[in-house]
């Protein structure tokens, strides 16, 4: 069973977001990396770029498919996980810590509140099988 840590918020497209004050850290979930299979390439925005809630902000490519990454929040990218770009396998090994993707400075700190909490995300992926 895919792990769903507490303290995070989750999107229907299987991104997770950690809100700390006005900084959102974003990655993809264990369920997502499991379904994608071995990740071979990740494309992320540059530092300073604006990304918008529900819009694609990057691409993750695995041996099975190429998928868009959808932003759970609106804001400016302040940090990109550079080591991840050279070692995309980190997403498979550790999606919730070393596999984080971008940190975003958000204007609206309640941006992630409408997303799923760990309990509802767990139910959501159980339905998906």
């Amino acid at each position, binding site marked *: 069973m895919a792990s769903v840590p507490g303290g995070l918020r989750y999107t229907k497209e299987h991104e997770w977001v950690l809100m700390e004050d006005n900084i959102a850290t974003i990655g993809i979930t264990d369920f997502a990396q499991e*379904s994608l*299979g071995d990740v*071979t*390439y990740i494309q992320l925005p540059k530092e300073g770029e604006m990304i918008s809630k529900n819009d694609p902000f990057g691409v993750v*490519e695995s*041996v*099975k*498919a190429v998928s868009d990454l959808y932003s759970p929040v609106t804001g400016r990218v302040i940090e990109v996980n550079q080591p991840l770009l050279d070692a995309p*396998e980190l997403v498979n090994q550790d999606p919730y810590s070393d596999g984080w993707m971008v940190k975003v400075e958000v204007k609206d700190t309640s941006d992630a509140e409408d997303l799923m909490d760990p309990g509802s995300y767990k139910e959501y992926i159980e339905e998906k*099988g």
Partner: protein
Amino acid sequence: MKPQSGATSCLMLREGTIFERSTPERKGFQLSFPEVPRLTPTTFSRTEPAELPEVAELQVVRHFTRLSSWNYAIDLGTFPLGSCTMKYNPRINEEMAALAGFCDVHPELPPPFCQGSLRLIFQLERALAEIVGLDACTLQPAAGALGEFTGLTMVRAFHEKHGSHRKYVLVPESAHGTNPASCILAGYQAITIKVGPEGYMTTASVEDAISKYGRDIAALMTTNPNTLGVFEQNISHIAELLHGIGAQLIMDGANMNAILGIAKPGDMGVDVMQYNLHKTFSTPHGGGGPGAGPVACRSHLIPFLPNPRIVHKAGIYDVEYLPDSIGKVKGAFGNFGVMVRALTYIMNHGSQGLRTVSKNAVINANYLRAQLQKKYQLGTSTPHFHECVLSDSRQIQQNGTKTLQIAKALMDYGYHPPTVYFPLTVPGAMLIEPTETESLQELDQLAEAFLEIAARIENKEDTFENAPTKTFVGKVDEVGAARKLILSVDDRPR
């Protein structure tokens, strides 16, 4: 009968790159000294000789013949990728395409000197338009993707002619993967429409999109039957909704193999569609040579078809240029040799024969589905047409074996794997399309291979982690190959 086995029990010849066969100064062919003066400015000439292999003719022949012996092809055995990739090419097609009058004709010959070829194009256009129930057709696009682009560009030209500058094309997630890409190339934004639990578009999801984007919607682009092999049952109603806001219904005819002579897209309300002659009309695949992706349309879109159009007036075939045309999308009239093969196929079958083709394609897929669902989870319970979709969910539960391993294991039984992990709407999808040409015995053998693999998984005898083991090239490191790209011979590890 046992499944085909021992894929490697014949003589297989190892072969390196053609550069390894190179010997300095060896020549296979000498270009004669040109009689015409050189016109290229010397500033564009290379200063160092090109790095080409120096090989004789027979070495080239052996190199490529040896490599070709590594291929798996429909001429060798059942090919579950189906018409989605390419179906069997009957040999009579090649005979017709090799006729001197067809293969020696120059594409720029003036019409009076190539009446036969123009007539063939004209007839094929009419036959294809009739098959889909639309008013006209162009054979110019060189492949399905160019056909998609052509159709979308015609829709754009149509809207702009009427002073309407629209932004969006709706694309259901059951459509072919190329559809959203074509929309973007044509300057539109693709909006994804969710598919209902039965595997096809719901009217409600299209109504939602219409209430949100309204008259900014240029068209909806769908593949029907869709990638699940399921018929878009609400298509006529959806066509009405689209026409209500002046939008067009574009169909990707990639799966026409399921409905030839049975259903006409024109009757469903489709305004413009493209076909792939290699998928449905038994021509060679565009990826391996020249292809063709004709586009058919309803009368209101005819003025926008690519130029030139072939017309038949007073017994003479001629070309005509339409003022509102989107222009040329390919040199000359498209890839003519492919058209000869497609018309041969259509005339050889006739209307009843084409109907039988689709009936057999659908029966074959459903026979396989009935056999395989004994051990595999179906991707959808809705009836399939010419292809069926399985999931690996039972096998994952039994001993963790996934679709990729099942596909690799199939190679040890002497089969090419089916399409895997597509469509994306089914987790661990295996998309199997046997086409109409497989006999009952061959379908049974393929099913037996699938079922034997499933039985070994169920009995926890194997997870096929190391498959394939019997093939000429064993298990390859696909992840490593994708992560550490080797793009040149010189970069190879030695």
